[in-house]
């Protein structure tokens, strides 16, 4: 462990804590994840391509991507509005509303799934008002998107909120004193500061939606080619003992998730640097 150290410290416990952390990380996380790639490497190229390139798998990827993208986009718009309202305005119940935003983190996904399905089914509290307009929601891609909006809701709000809170009011005052109206101030002063956080929130919501299972499985109806998302296809293949196919589809999903994670990390670093840079300017 001593070789790793780049700076001397008088504090004890470096070897013990780092050794334990890395060992635990390897045993529980890295080795099992590597096992997935070992298993998919044992498939021949033809088997792998047949699994990930089958029409059913392609339809599942398309649906997962499309619904996740639509849900994250909806969250970007409404999340920005919610963050703005929670930071800028004072009204009764604001504190409770603010706390409620984290509900999708705390509520088990299966509970969210059965609740949304019950609400949006033909005879549900919401579904009965949508049905006459010819908008069936439960067991359609629209229903999947709604479940994913629920799941991704906190991400945009919670990434944009702190940036809005830390904004200097002087910036807006300066814009106003130079004759900008509120819309121009938003477009040319506020939005350029907010967009890295907005994109980060979008990406977090998108990444979470891509792998989501519990809240979607009830509302989707699970019809192959129509309402079957990628994680569900993995479960279906597993239940039919098609371990190879399940592994191949999972490997693709995992690689996509890791790419998103790296992208999000880069975005967050970019956002922090930009933001820190703005704050360090001489007064």
């Amino acid at each position, binding site marked *: 462990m001593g070789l*790793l*150290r*780049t*700076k001397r*410290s*008088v*504090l*004890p*416990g*470096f070897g013990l*804590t780092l050794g334990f952390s*890395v060992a635990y*990380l390897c045993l*529980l*996380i890295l080795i099992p*994840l590597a096992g997935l790639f070992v*298993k998919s490497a044992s498939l021949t190229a033809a088997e792998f391509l047949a699994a990930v390139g089958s029409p059913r798998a392609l339809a599942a990827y398309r649906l997962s991507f499309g619904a996740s993208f639509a849900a994250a986009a909806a969250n970007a718009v*409404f999340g920005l*509005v*919610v963050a703005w309202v*929670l930071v800028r305005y004072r009204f009764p119940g604001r504190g409770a509303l*603010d706390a*409620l*935003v*984290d*509900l*999708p983190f*705390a*509520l*088990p*996904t*299966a*509970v969210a799934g059965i*609740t949304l399905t*019950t609400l949006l089914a033909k005879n549900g509290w919401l579904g009965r008002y949508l049905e006459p307009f010819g908008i069936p929601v439960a067991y359609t891609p629209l229903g999947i998107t709604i479940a994913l*909006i*629920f799941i991704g*809701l906190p*991400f945009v*709000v*919670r*990434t944009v*909120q*702190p940036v809005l809170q830390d904004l200097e*009011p002087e910036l807006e*005052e300066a814009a106003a*004193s130079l004759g900008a109206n*509120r819309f121009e101030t938003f477009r040319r002063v506020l939005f350029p500061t907010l967009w890295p956080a907005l994109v980060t929130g979008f990406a977090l919501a998108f990444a979470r939606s*891509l792998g*989501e*299972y*519990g809240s979607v499985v009830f509302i989707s109806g699970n019809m192959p080619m129509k309402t079957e998302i990628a994680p569900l296809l*993995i*479960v279906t293949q597993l239940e039919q003992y098609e*371990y190879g196919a399940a592994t191949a589809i*999972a490997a693709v999903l*995992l690689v996509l*998730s890791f790419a998103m*994670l*790296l992208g999000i990390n880069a975005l967050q670093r970019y956002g922090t640097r930009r933001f820190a840079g703005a704050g360090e300017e001489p007064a």
Partner: protein
Amino acid sequence: MTSASAGRDWTLADVPPPPRTASAVADPPWVRGLLIGVALLFLGLFLLLPLVTVFGQAFSKGIGVYLDAITDPMALAAMRLTLLVAAISVPVNAVFGVAAAWAIAKFEFRGKSLLITAIDLPFAVSPVVSGLIFVLLFGAQGLLGPWLTLHGVKIIFAIPGIVIATTFITFPFVAHELIPLMQEQGTEEEEAAVSLGASGFQIFRRVTLPNISLGLLYGIVLLNARAMGEFGAVSVVSGHIRGQTNTMPLHVEILYNEYQGAAAFAVASLLALLAVVTLVVKRVLEWRMGRASRAL
């Protein structure tokens, strides 16, 4: 106006101040009203309505059905298993989180940012894939499957698999919370303790732990909520054996699929109650720590 033009018996102090420039950076009332309306409608439809629905549906067949559902032997077995799983994965991951945060926040070493990224990996993995990797390792057809069968150890479709998958899913929570907190606190207080002759354990217990206790609790509360509510990963490894490998979320699924809606929502209402308690405790801790809510 009259008095001013008449005798100028006023001083500058009497002149009402000009309207605050605040109006220049405040939104017009109609924008304000519209945005609050949109936010309330959105949160009302997507958060409040589902939350109310859980409890509404739970009591839709009366209190008797509700009580029967949550005192059913299978439901009680599911609750016991859920508590057992949380009782293992929460302390294990809390200890890991503290150890990892200590190494990362108090020392400089090569590969640190790589380690931080690796710790967050489970957040990026789909719950289903999290379950699958353990089926591939420990399942009958898995890499270690033959060895486990030979020695009569059952992990997949048994409780150990559920515990392992849940521990995987909830692995980053405490570390993710403590690393930035401890990095911010620096090392000066601990160094002072060392110079006064404190042992490693004394430093941790008397200096570090009091400083991080709220953050640690915060991480544990979120970790616990996820451990008790995890569905996808557990569903893949559990095998859904009633009374044996059914956690509460899986029990909710079974009841729901058997068209026992009120019973499903009755058990779900306990999980929703846990979620509400989690949110309240989270908010209180955030208030005590003097900081805003943030995403994971």
